[in-house]
């Protein structure tokens, strides 16, 4: 496509989002798919994703025959960028769009692609994820949830935790143990595209530290799922999970596109500083606030520039994997500190919580609490630093 066509397309998308951005629903929206805690929030977000898909701005580069747009990836990238700029709500079927969908397109059977892809895009079928377990810690290899073959079914027993959208999901990507033998703990794991509406599968909402909901612990009690839910072969679960995680990290392409969270930027906080008062004066005039904002602006600029620079091979550092391996650590810790800092600009009103009287409905306080989901989930920040020390710098293991 020509540069001109791209520019025109960008303008078209921008206009569409400007014209179609949903009105304020009158309740505080979640900022990521992990924070969908009420039916009204869920329905609002599902409808919005559906509308974006219908407009053609989601899954644009996915194959046409399965419901995608069949167009160049660059168009989806532009649409995603404009979606972010327009600051509209995120695409709520995140697990489907970014994990399950790309995986099915890459490794799934033809029938899976036909069956699942379109409904992932339209938000008709919500997907959830069943990797973590309550007592397994950060190592997925410790998964104990069992799947035992019985005729043309698998019988599931055990539980999975941090299942976001668990109560709304129709399918789950599930890592379960089909064997306790094998050369190592990874060998007995298998991967399933499991239905959720089956007797014996029970997602129980977990109350978060915010007091809200958004995650479940999903219990399996002799739940029977069809044997053809197995993806690949028995025992290949670990490898397929690793492929899935590369989609999570965004290291490879293939996702449907669309924003998956309302990313908090430093500019949002600068904007907040302009309109709130800390101690009777605009926060932006407070010397401590100013200094902190500059530090945050430098830090977020660092993160953006790292991504750019690391794509230029001649400018790689002596530790070329550092940027890639640290993305989650940098983003999640910045987000935690940034939302924490935003609070401090509110003076005494920092001590409010989600309510009409709170600044922006309490999103800053809630945002700080929710920020821990990323500094903890997917390997805590402490584990991330170990990984950087060991895999990037080559330091010895603990």
């Amino acid at each position: 496509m020509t540069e001109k066509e791209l520019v025109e397309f960008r303008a078209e998308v921008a206009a569409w989002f400007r014209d179609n951005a949903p009105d304020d629903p009158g309740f505080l929206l979640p900022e990521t798919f992990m924070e969908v805690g009420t039916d009204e929030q869920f329905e609002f977000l599902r409808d919005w994703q559906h509308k974006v898909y219908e407009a053609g701005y989601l899954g644009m580069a996915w194959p046409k025959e399965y419901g995608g747009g069949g167009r160049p990836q660059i168009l989806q990238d532009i649409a995603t960028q404009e979606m972010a700029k327009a600051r509209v709500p995120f695409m709520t079927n995140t697990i489907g769009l970014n994990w399950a969908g790309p995986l099915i397109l890459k490794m799934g059977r033809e029938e899976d692609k036909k069956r699942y892809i379109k409904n992932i895009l339209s938000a008709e079928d919500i997907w959830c994820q069943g990797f973590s377990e309550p007592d397994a810690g950060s190592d997925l290899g410790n998964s104990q949830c069992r799947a035992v073959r019985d005729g043309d079914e698998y019988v599931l027993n055990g539980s999975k935790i941090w299942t976001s959208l668990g109560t709304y999901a129709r399918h789950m990507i599930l890592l379960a143990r089909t064997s306790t033998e094998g050369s190592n703990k990874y060998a007995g794991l298998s991967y399933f595209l499991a239905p959720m509406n089956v007797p014996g599968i029970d997602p129980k909402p977990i109350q978060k530290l915010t007091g809200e909901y958004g995650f479940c612990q999903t219990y399996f009690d002799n739940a029977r799922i069809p044997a053809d839910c197995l993806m690949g072969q028995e025992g290949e679960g670990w490898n397929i999970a690793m492929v899935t995680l590369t989609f999570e990290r965004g290291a490879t392409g293939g996702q449907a596109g669309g924003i998956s969270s309302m990313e908090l930027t430093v500019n949002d906080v600068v904007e907040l500083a302009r309109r709130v008062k800390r101690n009777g004066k605009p926060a932006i005039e407070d010397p401590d606030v100013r200094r902190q904002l500059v530090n945050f602006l430098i830090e977020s600029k660092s993160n953006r520039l790292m991504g750019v620079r690391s794509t230029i091979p001649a400018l790689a550092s002596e530790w070329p994997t550092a940027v890639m391996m640290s993305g989650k650590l940098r983003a999640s810790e910045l987000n935690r500190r940034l939302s924490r800092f935003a609070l401090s600009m509110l003076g005494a009103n920092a001590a409010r919580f989600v309510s009409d009287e709170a600044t922006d409905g309490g999103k800053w306080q809630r945002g700080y609490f929710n920020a821990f989901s990323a500094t903890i989930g997917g390997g805590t920040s402490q584990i991330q630093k170990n990984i950087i020390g060991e895999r990037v710098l080559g330091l010895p293991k603990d």
Partner: protein
Amino acid sequence: MIKFTDEQSMLLETAADFCRNHGPIEKVRASLDADDIDRGLWQEMSDLGWLGINVPEEYGGLGLDISSIVPVVESMGRYLLGSPYVSSVLVAECLASCGSDSQRSEWLPKIVAGTIGTFALTEEDGSWVLDDIEAVGTVSDQTLHLTGTKMFVTDADVADLIIASVKIDGAVRLVLIERNQIPPGNLSREVVIDQTRRSFRLNLDGIEISASQVLAGSDLKAIELNSMLMLCAEMSGGLTGVLQVIVEYLNTRKAFNRLIGSYQSLKHPSADIVLSLEAAKSHLYYAATLVSDGDDNAETAIRMAKAQASEAFAFAGDRAVQFHGGFGFTFECDAQLFLRRALWCQYQHGDENYHCRLLEPLLLDQAV
């Protein structure tokens, strides 16, 4: 340099026992966002004489100074107890120093007996400068007509008297509002970060009080410093509580086949936290000593204590959540209770940046 009398030691011991007994965390959880205060707890406190500790003997109190309350409040903070105790004690302190003879005679014996008092000082913009207010009292005949709105009025629904700040003829004055003078509908509950607090918005519009309900004095600085001393006590106790929660988990939970407390990335910040607790406790009792002595440096000591403890407790609360991993992200984990308490305390009467800036002239611009 730090004084602690036998009398205070005894009080501390009683308070520690009392709060331990009343402070199982299940009881605290049951009290979150409750519609009423724990009346039984309140009665017991009153029976113990704690509401009269700083009330002059002539009004039925013990006649000790406000700093004697510190060990009691610290113990309450340790177990996250919520009650109108601090506000009532501070109201008594304010009446004793700023009230007229008749106001003292009327109210102090009642407070000793369990009458609840609270303050209405902060306004919508959340300013920590107490005389930076817009509420107004207009006198006509012997009646004072109030207008304006106050925020963060704790336990306002159960308070028998509320001391509010308003501008009368351009000067900030304190007025004493009685419960029956507040029209229904003028109070609305606020959602605050610390769910052990019962906080209210008080609309002053339409409230009319007698001109005799204006307090003689209006020493806002005394209110600020005394309140801060109490917050420091709560924070010192809270730091102890949250560190216990951390240490217990670090000694129980395993990751990669090791107790997580064996990892330096958790162990070393925990060491930082215990040292910050030791510092907070030390600043607290030093400030209490200077207050008790009427020392001119009490302001400096209190602001230092508030700045140090605010930062330390908020850090500890944040790390407590993080160190609990996935469990830390749940409402069920106690770490969040302490984090919420820490944030409340930090943003009442000014955070560390605010106080450090106020300390600059006190510490740097005087002859060495």
